[in-house]
């Protein structure tokens, strides 16, 4: 593990031990909420039915598994988290939780979440969850993040697995439709994170993280954002073609896709620093809404089908 740079903070006192809210912060609750939401969509959209109690247990296990990988990420990345503005207030760089405590917390929760999902719901889904945690921690955090500007392209797969795990919890396998849900998040991740990296490039540079704007410059990053957005927009409409999405999904995915590409074009065109940052922030904010709405519509359509059918 890399050296941890603990920042000075009057409120930090390692001898006190972490408070409950520090351990909650280790789980990255905001990321967790997106994971729960996409996993729930996968579960509801999957053919078949799972007892509601088992569904809740599966969601809880997936959420805890995602939180565990967040804790392990914070354990490994404490040195660079201490440098970047966005992450320097996290519990480990602040010294409120030690790196060893974060490691133990993450490992215990990883094992518990996988075993719980396997024993109570599906060993196939549990294997997918274990793979996702391992991929995020070993492949993305420990290897790709500090070694290549393609880190979030490949590492983005970890964030794309939850709907597939939710699907597998119901059916016990994966299908073309669950793979489509995976692909949508996978293709969404690069423009989402590169938009953030465009206006946080100095932070990443100071921390030595080879994000695309740091390595290839903002021009190439804008071009790549546009390219991935142009691929994402039609791909996100595919569920309407396979039958996974209904009429509402078809309309929403087309409209949102056009808006996404238009904002990406705006980012590509505005090379001026201030205007460029503003456009990138707009795309970043919209990308979150975009993914949320796509999955919300799928969730609503399938919930309606369950109610009617």
């Amino acid at each position, binding site marked *: 593990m890399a050296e941890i740079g603990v920042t000075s903070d009057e409120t930090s006192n390692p001898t006190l031990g972490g408070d*409950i809210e520090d351990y909650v912060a280790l789980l990255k609750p905001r990321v967790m909420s997106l994971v729960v939401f996409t996993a729930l969509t996968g579960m509801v959209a999957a053919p078949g039915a799972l*007892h509601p*109690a088992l569904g809740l247990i599966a969601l809880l296990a997936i959420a805890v598994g995602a939180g565990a990988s967040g804790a392990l990420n914070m354990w490994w990345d404490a040195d660079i988290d201490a440098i970047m503005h966005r992450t320097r207030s996290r519990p480990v760089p602040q010294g409120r939780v030690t790196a060893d405590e974060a490691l133990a917390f993450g490992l215990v929760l990883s094992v518990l979440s996988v075993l719980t999902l396997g024993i109570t719901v599906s060993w196939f889904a549990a294997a997918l969850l274990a793979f996702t945690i391992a991929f995020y921690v070993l492949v993305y955090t420990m290897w790709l993040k500090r070694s290549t500007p393609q880190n979030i392209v490949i590492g983005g797969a970890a964030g794309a697995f939850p709907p597939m795990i939710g699907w597998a919890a119901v059916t016990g396998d994966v299908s073309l439709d669950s793979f489509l849900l995976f692909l949508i998040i996978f293709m969404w991740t690069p423009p989402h994170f590169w938009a953030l990296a465009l206006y946080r490039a100095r932070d990443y540079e100071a921390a030595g993280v080879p994000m695309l704007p740091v390595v290839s410059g903002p021009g190439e990053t804008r071009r790549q954002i546009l390219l991935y957005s142009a691929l994402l927009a039609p791909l996100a409409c595919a569920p309407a073609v396979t039958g996974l999405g209904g009429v509402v999904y078809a309309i929403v995915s087309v409209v949102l896709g056009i808006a996404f590409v238009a904002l990406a074009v705006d980012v590509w065109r505005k090379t001026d620093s201030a205007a460029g940052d503003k456009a990138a922030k707009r795309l970043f904010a919209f990308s979150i809404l975009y993914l949320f709405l796509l999955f919300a519509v799928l969730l609503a359509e399938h919930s309606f089908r369950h109610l009617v059918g």
Partner: protein
Amino acid sequence: MSVATSAEDEHKRRQRMRSLAIGLALAALVVLFYVATIVRLGPNALNKKDGGFTSRPPVTQDATKQVPK
């Protein structure tokens, strides 16, 4: 109150909260596995007469013949 006592009190409070959280998490895990067991095995899991095995398929005559002697 001295600074040292205050820090010690805070340390104890956090330790107590962590212990409480671990205890609650373990209790939740027990409830969770209990619920999962009942859901998967059905209400017969608690039926002492047959040990909760009524949800298993009955052993057929053909199946018993295949048991090696």
